[in-house]
């Protein structure tokens, strides 16, 4: 499992957290599980980075928190997207897709680009 662990690019964790909350409120443990399962066990979120990221997002007003009961009947802190968080998510997804496409283009190139003056 450790082999499959990928390093997070800076800023990626935030957008992933926002995305996982699109389907409804979740607690921190649920968020890390969801990311792990959604990425087919490829992305493992460390707790030491997950919680500070959650609090930072809450502090920025992108998330809001509420205490509730978990599926195993324990008191847990659930996070949900705010309107502002949803807007931020849309923006970041767009940025991310553009970035990924660009990177993919470069990495997937089979030949060098044509000289510019000839294009």
């Amino acid at each position, binding site marked *: 499992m450790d082999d499959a662990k990928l390093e997070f690019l800076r800023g990626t964790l935030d957008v992933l957290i926002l995305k996982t909350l699109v389907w409804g*409120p979740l*607690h*921190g*443990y649920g968020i890390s599980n969801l990311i792990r399962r959604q990425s087919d066990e490829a992305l493992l979120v460390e707790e030491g980075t997950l919680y500070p990221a959650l*609090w930072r997002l809450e502090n920025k007003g992108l998330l809001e928190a509420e*205490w509730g009961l978990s599926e*195993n009947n324990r*008191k*847990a*802190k659930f996070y949900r997207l705010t309107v502002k968080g949803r807007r931020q998510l849309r923006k970041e997804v767009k940025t991310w897709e553009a970035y990924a496409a660009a990177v993919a283009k470069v990495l997937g190139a089979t030949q060098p680009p044509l000289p510019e003056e000839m294009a």
Partner: protein
Amino acid sequence: MRPAPLWRRYDRLSGSDPAADVKDELRFHLETKVDDLVAQGWRPEDAHKEAERQFGNILAVQHMGERIGEHMDRRRRLTDYWADALRDLRFTLRTLRCDAGFTVIAILILALGIGANIAVFSVVNTILLRPLPFRDAEQLVRIVEKDAKNGESGRTYTADATQDFQQRNRSFQSVSGYFAFTGPNNFKLSGNGQPVPATGMLVAEGFFETLGVEPAAGRLFRPEAFAHHAQPAALLSYPFWKRQFGGDPGIVGRTVDLSDKVDLNNKSVTVVGVLPETFDFGAVFSPGAKVDLFVPYIMDDFRNDGNDLALVGRIKPGVSIAQAQNEADLLFPQFYAVHKHPEYGKPYTGQLTGLKQYISGKLRRSLIVLWWAVGMILLIVCVNLANLLLARAAARGKEFAMRSALGARTGHIVRQLLTESLVLAGAGALLGLGLAWAVLAYLAHQESIALPLLSMVRIDGAALAWTLLIAVGAAVLFGPAPVLRMSAGNLQAALKDSGHGSSEGRKHQRMRSILVVTEIALACVLLVGAGLLLRSFLRVLDVDLGFEPSRAAAVSVDYDDGGDVAKRSAIWHEVVSRASTIPGVEAAGISDNLPMSRNRSWGIAAKGTQKLTDRDFIDDFVYIVSPGYLKAMGMRLVAGRDVSWDDIANNRNVVVINETVARKLWPGQSPIGRIAIAGGAETEVIGVIADVHESSAEDDAGAQMYLPSTKQFGPEGSYLVVRSRLAPAAMAMSVMKTLREINPGQSAGEFKPIQGLVDRATSPRRFFVLLVGVFACLGLLLASLGIYGVISYSVTRQTQEIGIRMALGATQARVQLEVISDTLRLALIGIGLGVIASFAIARSIASLLFRTAPTDPLTFAAMVVLLGGVALLAGYLPARRASRIDPIQALRNN
């Protein structure tokens, strides 16, 4: 997610706890992880370790969480606070708008109270608190004789003595002075069109440098301007430059034609500079006077004259006034009045007083009294508003009870009430600022009020800070009044409709009564104080001045005698005889000085058998007059005769003295025909006049003598005084026409009623009486409003009860009587307390009173009757309403 069950919501009952939140959140994570691991087949103890291992540094994360949590919490509280405040404000504005009548009255009352306080504070601040408008003003001192009683001559020094002090002192950076005997319009500015009179002040070398005044244009006088036969130079005051030269900067360096009315020389004078707008000589040194220009006081021209320089010095840094005083005590007795005539003696002493203290020291007490009076007004305003708010709270009792029932804490309601009172006080303060601004703008331009620095009065930062302070103070004082009522209240009783006659209502009524009694007592103190001051003022007006100011007026006469005594006598004779023949004129005469304005003094002694020494001379105000002047002023000849044209023509040295001189020099004997040494010559006493109050109405008359204008006695300027059957304004045209016929160069001087001089002399007292009187009236008005409010409210509350009693046979008169006796009870308690307080307070203003005892029974009685009468009137209106209650209507309505 499922919502937490009810019991679990109570674990943050005592308020939010970010640290515990973080701990709980992380604990949940670990526990769930352990569950999952166990489900995957781990042994529980190992699962626990594994979960913690996976988590990493849990403490560091926890710590970070606490920090972020606290930050969020703080921010949330702040946002909540402002959101609440904003909500309170919106709510307040809405309720106030609903109750527009109350709002308008409350704001108006507050505006009056706060506005009066701002205005008085600004005056106090300008005259007492703020340093003088000079650089390092605390270093400036005024130097006068120790026992300075006899007019300006006792507050001034000769040129020689001044120079000695300048050279020998070690405590001062510089010492300078100004010529203290400058009369208004002592110069004539000619050039374009009719000559313009101007007031010019002679200042000694270094005067402006000592004060630290920098010119607005051009430069100050150079040292050579003070040399004998120097090129004449002048500095213009800012207002004169604006008025006369249209603020033309090109005037600097040009010459203007200026003639001095005393030595009557026409000179062309170079304007070397313009003084700054902030420098108002009159405001600082001679209240109410305006000075148009400044010329050098050339010491060599005044070597043989008497005391004429008023000294101002700037002490060196680090030297105290006491140290400088010690030095002055050593030095001044060594100075000769005139070096060339050591036989004139060395009569000097020097008393140093801080310039600020010298200027405003005498007003200190009056201003503090004024401040207290206006503070009392604010207190009455607050009490009145508390009363109004209480009445309103009674109407809003249900609202508050409802809000309490719905969970509003007392703190919230207090905050709501404070918001309301702050809004009211804020609006009142804004309106009050406007009022104060208008009043101060008016005061600053009152040249007839002889108060120092008054022209510099304005609303400055300190006044704004004071406004804020008193507005907030007032709001805190009157705002929470309804809370007292509410906290004593009973929710259920308030929620139920009526509550008439309930004990709570009675308690409430008692509190309002206490407030009204307080108001009446305060108003009583104000009224008594104002009454005592008013009576003093009337006593001052009643003083026998020794002359008749009404229907007499004076104008400065210009003439050119070329320094020839005979020619001067001829001109004076012509002016007086032609003025006397103008229709409507009863008497006319000339004097060089008028009472209650500029003065000077010489010594006078009775000629006896022995040689006279310094001790035999008494200081004596001296007036050089023409025949007819005494009559024109309405002065009363007690014995002997007035000076005559014959005396002047024959150069006879004769003198008319006043009773004070007669009493001092020839006690118990007739002075007529005696020989006195006056002005350095033997003169024959030909007449005695009743004492004239030459300096002020309040001080006792000093020694005075009236000398004819002869070779021996030269006048300092000349004023024609005309007594007429008509009002002075009606005479102005014909008198000015006559003067212009005699001398076409006569400047368009002002024809001033003598009454104006008296008014000016009494103006500070009038100013204070007027203000304290206005405050007292305001206090009376507010107190009567308070009485009316309380009585009227209690009548409304008792409508039902009164209705029942009338139905049972009570007569209208009886109901009326009861309501009025309620009023009287309040009024009497208030007046009783007020009179006791007034006795105590009146003693502290005793020094401000004139020929009036602080316990003056008439004043006390009059004020008690006035206050009682107004209180009765305020109570009568609701009483009449009570007696008109229709029992059927009253009973049906409830």
